[in-house]
């Protein structure tokens, strides 16, 4: 469904990604793991159009989408849950969700999508009138995911959903990811929490210094001695 071939990108003269290729088939979940500064967030921002792609080909359902600006990517069915959640803190939960359905296609289905998100995350319904910035980290993550789902995406990009959360809440966030997968959504998730992420994805890529060093099914990577030594600590 989402496919990247030899994608390069960077900031000004600094290159952060060197010919990255990856594939997320429909209905599957892909994971990108790697250390700090490997280019994981850059990769997510390139896919969601926040950073322009310098080279390579990116397709969505076979259509080339590389180089589109962020607001057009959402129309192509790619929704992004940014790193650090990035909610609109002074707006209420429901206002955040409403803005999530900003694009015309989503606006027309706003009520249905809102029901769906509230069924997935009943907690958000309880908190609908609350300013998003005043909720706990886990609830904010829930709201950020809900906001992305409001555009009825085909692919959901999640950047470090567990970052900055307490261990128990991290567990809850990964439960959320499982629930979203059960809804049939295609997911691409970037995480430093290697052990946890390999439990929820089908296929994973190891990104180091801007290029893919290893890739394989989640089970393969879990048993890979390099990953076990460097990232799981066994």
């Amino acid at each position, binding site marked *: 469904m989402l496919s990247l071939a030899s994608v390069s990108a960077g900031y000004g003269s600094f290159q952060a990604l060197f010919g990255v290729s990856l594939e997320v088939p429909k209905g599957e979940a892909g994971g990108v793991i790697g250390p700090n500064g490997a280019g994981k967030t850059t990769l997510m921002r390139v896919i969601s159009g926040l950073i322009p792609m310098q080279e390579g080909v990116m397709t969505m359902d076979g259509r080339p989408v590389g180089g589109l600006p*962020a607001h057009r990517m959402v129309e192509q069915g790619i929704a992004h849950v*940014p790193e650090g959640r990035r909610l*609109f803190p002074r707006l*209420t939960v429901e206002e955040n969700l409403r*803005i999530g359905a*900003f694009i015309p296609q989503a606006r027309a289905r706003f009520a249905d999508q809102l029901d769906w998100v509230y069924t997935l995350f009943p907690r958000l319904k309880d908190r609908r*009138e*609350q*300013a998003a910035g005043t909720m706990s980290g886990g609830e904010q993550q829930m709201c950020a995911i809900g*906001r992305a789902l409001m555009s009825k995406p085909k692919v959901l990009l999640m950047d470090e959903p567990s970052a900055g959360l307490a261990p128990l809440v991290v567990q809850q966030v990964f439960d959320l990811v499982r629930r979203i997968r059960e809804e049939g959504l295609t997911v691409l998730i970037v995480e430093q929490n290697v052990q946890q992420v390999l439990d929820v994805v089908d296929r994973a890529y190891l990104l180091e210094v801007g290029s893919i060093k290893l890739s394989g099914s989640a089970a393969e990577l879990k048993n890979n001695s390099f990953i076990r030594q460097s990232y799981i600590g066994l």
Partner: protein
Amino acid sequence: MTFNRVLTLIGLAILIALPTFIPPYFLHLVIQILLWAFIYTAWALMGRFGFVSFGHGAFMGIGAYVPALLWNYYDLTPWIGIPLSLGISVLLAIIIGYPCFRLKVVGHYFALVTLALSQVVLLSLVAARDVTGGSLGFTQKTVGHSWYALQFPDKGYFYGIAVVLWLIGLLAWQRIDHGISREALEAISEDEDAAAAVGINVLREKLRVTVISAALTALGGAIYGQYIMYLNPETVSGIAVSLQIVFASIAGGVYSLLGPTVGSLLTLSLTEGLRVWFGANFIGAANTIYGILLVLCIIFMPQGIVGTIEGIKARRRRMAKPSAAPSNVRT
């Protein structure tokens, strides 16, 4: 709601009847209040979303000078000159806005860029002395009562025009407030990247509101120029005017429909009142008091006067109705 509607109707009736019973000096004040209220409202269209422009003096100056110059030198009617000045303001807004928004120049940096814009237009007006009269100012050729020249010795006409203009300003505010643009702009003002990530065309939304705001400000400047019939770079353009626009709007309240209008009412009555009261006794005292009051206003009522009153009302309503929704950070 119906009560509010009745109040609105009574207000409009008084507004229509006003010129028949107040003395010319006060009519002059009311016209100025309305014209400035229009300009402040135009500024607040973007100011309320945190796009603080210190460059609106430039748009006002262009609005005032372009039709006047065209009239004096080419006998071109303001009916063509004003749309031209609006066009020039829009063009300038795009020339400044596009790179700023593209390169994510926001907050203080945006304020500085627009501040420079104010100064550039002011200096250009002063430097083009042979054409604009420089710091000595500029007076339009008078032809007496004329719709063609948009000149009316009878203040009643300008009063009518000012009321219509002011209502146009309020209408523009309402249109944005009730439209989807408001959601988009609110999101952008909170977090530009997140707004882009949910599908908002950040550049387009910001540019659109900037262009609308600049065009309306130029229109306000044009009518103000036609009314006053004497243009001076310092009084219709430049940093002083830009600052006046920013402070008066904020003091009145940029988050409320009538905030900028109250800001205009307050600042003008204050300057006039202090001026009349002090007369020639303590030169500068009026300005000092005016400045102090403005600073106090902004410190203690960051939501502006109207915003603060609305906040108090909302709190009362909530106390009267304990089942109401839990409080929200915004008022």
